[in-house]
Structure formats: structure tokens, C-alpha cells
């Protein structure tokens, strides 16, 4: 490992020792952070998987009932029936901090219930009612999944970044500092011995 390019003086030695102490403490802290983030990550990732399976199954069901509605109605009629939404849902967005990572947290406003349908009942079969109602019911879950999935991604990125920092400290910075300190120490000792010998010769 390459040592740093510094003068072998007591001043430098003192400075480097302080830097090493900081580096070691930083390394420990980052490693602890990494451990905790990984623990959180596994929990959220598992939740994500379960939620995604659930939502995908339900969404497939909704699609099926919509397909059933469409199969008995001409496609242009089905399209026009749904073309204007009866209402719009909003989302109350905030952020939540998981180990210093800003993750989205969303509450849905005005949705999640069976609201009025966007069409008149004579326009389309009752199957459409089911699919529209189910879609409304599914929406909060979809939003939850969106939040969780985004959190997983953000957390994964942060874990990766943190890992790089930990490794840089562990395998580059700390060995470098240690080696330089050793080098300066041996140089100083060498100088001291040389001075002693010189004095003995003079006498």
C-alpha cells in the first residue's frame, strides 16, 4: 500500500494520528449504519414482495372483469363510457426518513371508496361496475406498493453508496495512514539513533 507523501516530522505524525483516529471512528459508524440499513431493507423488501404479489393478482382480477364488461359491449361504447372520470383522487405527499434516506409517504385523498361511476347505467353492463369499484378499492394498495417499492430502490442505492464509503475507509484510507505513521516513526527513531551515535563519536 502506498504511503502518503509527507515530511517525516513530529508535526505530521501528530496530524496523521488524529486523522487515523477520525477515520477509524468514521469507519465504525458507517459500518453500523450499513448494518442497520440492511436490516431495514430486508424487512421492506419482503413487504414489497408480498404486496406486489397481492396487487398483481387483484389487478389481474379487475382486468378480467373489465374484459368481461367489454366483451358484451361494443368497444367504442366501452371507451366512451369510461372516457370522463366522475372524480379525481389526489394524494397527500410527504417524505419519511429511513436512516437518513428520504422516502416517499403518500396518503390518498378522496379515493379508496366506491364512488359514483363515470357512466350512466344503460351505457354498459354491470360487470363494468364491478371493475370500476374494484379499481377504486385497489387504488390505496397500489399507492402503498408504489411507496414501498420506491423506498426499496432508494434504500438499495444508499446501501450501495455506503458500502463503497466503508470499503474506501477500510481498504485504502486506514492502511495508508497506518503505513505512513509507521514510516514516520521509523524515520524519527533512525534520526534519534544517528544523533546518539554522532554524539558518542564526538566525545
Amino acid at each position, binding site marked *: 500500500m502506498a504511503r502518503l507523501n509527507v515530511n517525516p516530522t513530529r508535526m505530521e505524525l501528530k496530524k496523521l494520528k488524529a486523522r487515523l483516529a477520525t477515520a477509524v471512528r468514521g469507519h465504525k459508524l458507517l459500518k453500523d449504519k450499513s448494518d442497520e440499513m*440492511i436490516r431495514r*431493507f*430486508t424487512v421492506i*423488501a419482503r413487504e*414489497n*414482495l408480498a404486496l*406486489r*404479489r397481492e*396487487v*398483481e393478482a387483484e*389487478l*389481474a382480477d*379487475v*382486468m378480467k372483469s*373489465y*374484459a368481461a364488461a*367489454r366483451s358484451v359491449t361494443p368497444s367504442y361504447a366501452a*371507451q366512451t363510457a*369510461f372516457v370522463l*372520470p*366522475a*372524480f*379525481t*383522487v*389526489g*394524494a*397527500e*405527499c410527504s*417524505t419519511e426518513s429511513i436512516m437518513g434516506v*428520504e*422516502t*416517499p409517504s*403518500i396518503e390518498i*385523498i*378522496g*379515493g379508496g371508496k366506491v*364512488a359514483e*361511476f*363515470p357512466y350512466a347505467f344503460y351505457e354498459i353492463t354491470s360487470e363494468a361496475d364491478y*371493475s*370500476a369499484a374494484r*379499481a*377504486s378499492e*385497489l*387504488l390505496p394498495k*397500489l*399507492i402503498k*406498493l*408504489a*411507496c414501498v*417499492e*420506491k423506498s*426499496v*430502490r*432508494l*434504500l*438499495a*442505492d444508499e*446501501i*450501495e453508496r455506503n458500502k463503497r464509503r466503508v470499503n474506501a475507509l477500510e481498504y485504502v484510507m486506514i492502511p495508508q495512514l497506518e503505513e505512513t505513521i509507521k514510516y514516520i516513526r521509523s524515520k524519527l527513531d533512525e534520526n534519534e539513533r544517528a544523533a546518539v551515535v554522532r554524539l558518542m563519536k564526538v566525545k
Partner: protein
Amino acid sequence: MTGKIAAVGNGDCITVLRSAGVDAFPAEDEKKARDVLRKIAADYAVIFLDESYAVSLAGFLKRFDEQPYPVVLPIPAAGGSAGYGEKFLRETCERALGVDILFK
């Protein structure tokens, strides 16, 4: 902060979501989907994207992974799930932890 919810996709998928009160943006191919996403990314908090587009736009979607919002969620299209969501989750897991803990 109050945000809006959008769905980008093709055909039935977004029609159904529209009935649930989500703003729907039709896109017949990836290129259109990308243009639509670029246009609406600043205005919407949550964007549901057809899974088939998410696969080919994976590189483009990476830019949304930097900040909490907007949240782009790939959802299975009318033809049912192609397993893209799970695959993506597995990749994320491997990237972060080095091993795949979810699908053993």
C-alpha cells in the same frame, strides 16, 4: 404537499384506472410513453406505468430513482403480469446485499 396520480399505458389498463379517479395518459409505444413521462414527471407524484414499457424504458426510469418523487410504479398490463416487478425487486436486492434473500 398535494400531488396527483397518473397512469401511462395502453388500452384497458389505464381505462380501468381512470374510472378510479386516476388521470390517464394513453401511450401506444415506448417512445410515446417516454415523451409523456418526461412531460408529466414534474406535475404528478405517482405515475403508474404499463409493465411492458417499463422493461424497455428501464434506463430512462433510473433518473427517477434519485429523489423521493415522482414515484413511477410498473404495473402489469391487461395481459397479466410478466413477472417484471419481481425480477426488478430481485435485482435491487442483489445489488444492495450481494445475495438474493427473497427468492431462495
